[in-house]
């Protein structure tokens, strides 16, 4: 298993290089001269040249790219901000925990609600509960995250005054972002869990279990659910991408100083190295999450496991 994890970690390398290339290329298309943008029109020619040399802008695209990759893999260096001249990594280090707390708490929240209601909804198909949860999920899946955030803030912060509406001081500050981001995804997870569960309870092996005389609860959870779990885990992994993107917006709504607001601010100020660094970093986190999902998958499903461990293969 460890061998498998290491092998999978190695496959991340080309992906990260690819991600960097994509981000680099897109941002390369920014029109205008960065030095002029950063220093303003009043700066002298020497200042321009010094800026360009400092950030390697006098070199061609390809060499800058390779240099970046080299720095990234040897020194875990995400470049230097044009604005502050400080390493991007320093800022990232300070801000990533906030984003991670929001993302992890909301996915945990969403999965708990989504999976459990999804299973119940499928088992009691066409019951009242099923209709209500499906209807709610239908609406929640179409709610814009930032709008939901504003509505929740109006209700819980401004009207009821239970929770703070912005900032990151205490654990209370994280509740609204968690719900904002978690609710729409719990709806999506509910919908897919229900679908996979409905598929699973119709499988032949579930009928086998029933005809063995196994109690119904056991049939549902041990046989149907554990099998439905596999695609559900996969779906949750895929949703993580959207969720991380949503975290960027949620931070903006609740004024959290996380990675998301850092990227947005950097975009607004055209601080290209900061945007690159932030995006690549977030993509790395996402790639790690997908990897974790894959490993979890192999852990639950012996068929996948067998494909990777030498012993299991026939």
């Amino acid at each position, binding site marked *: 298993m460890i061998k498998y994890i290491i092998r999978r970690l190695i496959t991340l390398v080309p992906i990260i290089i690819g991600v960097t290339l994509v981000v680099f290329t897109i941002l390369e298309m920014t029109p205008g001269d960065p030095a002029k943008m950063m220093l303003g029109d009043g700066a002298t020619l020497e200042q321009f040249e010094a800026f360009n040399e400092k950030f390697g802008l006098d070199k061609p695209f390809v060499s800058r790219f390779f240099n970046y990759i080299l720095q990234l893999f040897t020194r875990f260096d995400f470049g230097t901000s044009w604005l502050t001249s400080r390493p991007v990594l320093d800022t990232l280090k300070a801000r990533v925990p906030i984003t991670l707390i929001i993302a992890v708490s909301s996915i945990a929240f969403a999965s708990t609600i989504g999976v459990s209601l999804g299973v119940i909804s499928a088992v009691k198909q066409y019951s009242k509960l099923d209709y209500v949860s499906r209807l709610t999920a239908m609406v929640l899946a179409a709610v814009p995250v930032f709008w939901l955030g504003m509505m929740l803030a109006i209700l819980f912060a401004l009207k009821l005054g239970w929770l703070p509406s912005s900032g990151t001081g205490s654990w209370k500050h994280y509740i609204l972002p968690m719900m904002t981001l978690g609710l729409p995804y719990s709806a999506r997870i509910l919908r897919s869990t229900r679908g996979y569960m409905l598929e699973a309870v119709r499988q032949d092996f579930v009928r086998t279990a029933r*005809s063995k005389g196994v109690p119904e609860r056991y049939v549902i959870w041990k046989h149907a659910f554990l099998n439905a779990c596999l695609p559900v885990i996969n779906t949750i992994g895929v949703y993580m991408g959207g969720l991380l993107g949503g975290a960027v917006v949620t931070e903006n709504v609740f004024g959290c100083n996380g990675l998301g607001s850092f990227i947005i601010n950097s975009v607004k100020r055209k601080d290209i190295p900061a945007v690159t660094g932030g995006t690549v970093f977030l993509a790395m986190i996402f790639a790690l999450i997908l990897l974790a999902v894959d490993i979890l998958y192999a852990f639950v499903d012996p068929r996948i496991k067998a494909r990777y461990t030498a012993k299991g293969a026939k």
Partner: protein
Amino acid sequence: MDTLNNTLLKVENLHVVYKARRETVYAVNGVSFCLKKGETLGLVGETGAGKTTTAYAIMRVLPDRTARIVNGIIEFEGYNLLDVPENLMRHGIRGEKIAIIFQDPMSALNPIMKVGDQIAEALKFHNKEDLSPERIEEQVDRTLELVGIQKERKYDFPHQLSGGMKQRVVIAIALVCEPVLIIADEPTTALDVTIQAQVLAMIDELREKLGTAMILITHDLGIVAQMCDNVAIMYAGEIIEIGSVEDIYSGKMQHPYTAGLFGSLPDLEKKTDRLHPIEGLMPDPTDLPKGCKFNPRCPRCMDICRNVQPEFTVEGTHKVACHLYGSGKGRGIDE
């Protein structure tokens, strides 16, 4: 003559329908048969004849949202199974006294559970004698060896086994609680001929050894000839002919549908130039024809067949539901 207390299972006038959104599928329409202890009954018919539905009704594992048992009695060891509450059914009957072997071994096993655990599961939930975990393991080992699999393979997952081995595991699951009745739903249809021969020989041997009664559902008249004591031929949810194998294979007083089934088979021993199949198709189960269900396809159809549902004509153990036979109601018109 049979004594009554020898009867293990008695199905009487069983009717099952499936209700889809706007349609009612009449899957089983008044099926009756009797099964004695240790006996094997072949349930023969083509797709849609209602064989599997009958089996599921006996086990009460029909999909509860769509299927309804509208009428009938299923008497097993003196109790009507249709009146037994669900938890008793689960606890005392399903898997314990009646076990089922499903058709497709590829999908009948849980892919993420070790086969040993899947066999042990049935034991655990019917643990009347309070067996210790070690004893359960022993029982699993023994059952695996009974079906011809080394006990070490209980740690395997289904994907590590071949099709034939999977079916052996499915059979092991059915046998592990030593039921008195096994329902085998096309147990070898998904297997190759040589593997089929192995599995059938094994089932037959075990059944004899354990004295288990069996309902063997199949479409293969060859398998029936090899395995069964009695045969029931089903068509459109009804048993149209029932009797001992000798009755059915003798060709005497044969239902035209049975004759058609035999006529569809190429003979291995004689050179036949042409097959004599039944023309046409199975009737639509939501809209069954009046009278004899087989009348639209029957080469010997008479006026009466289109209007009057035929009763069984009985000759010893042999019963046929056809107007051609019996009191001569139809004979006069035909000849």
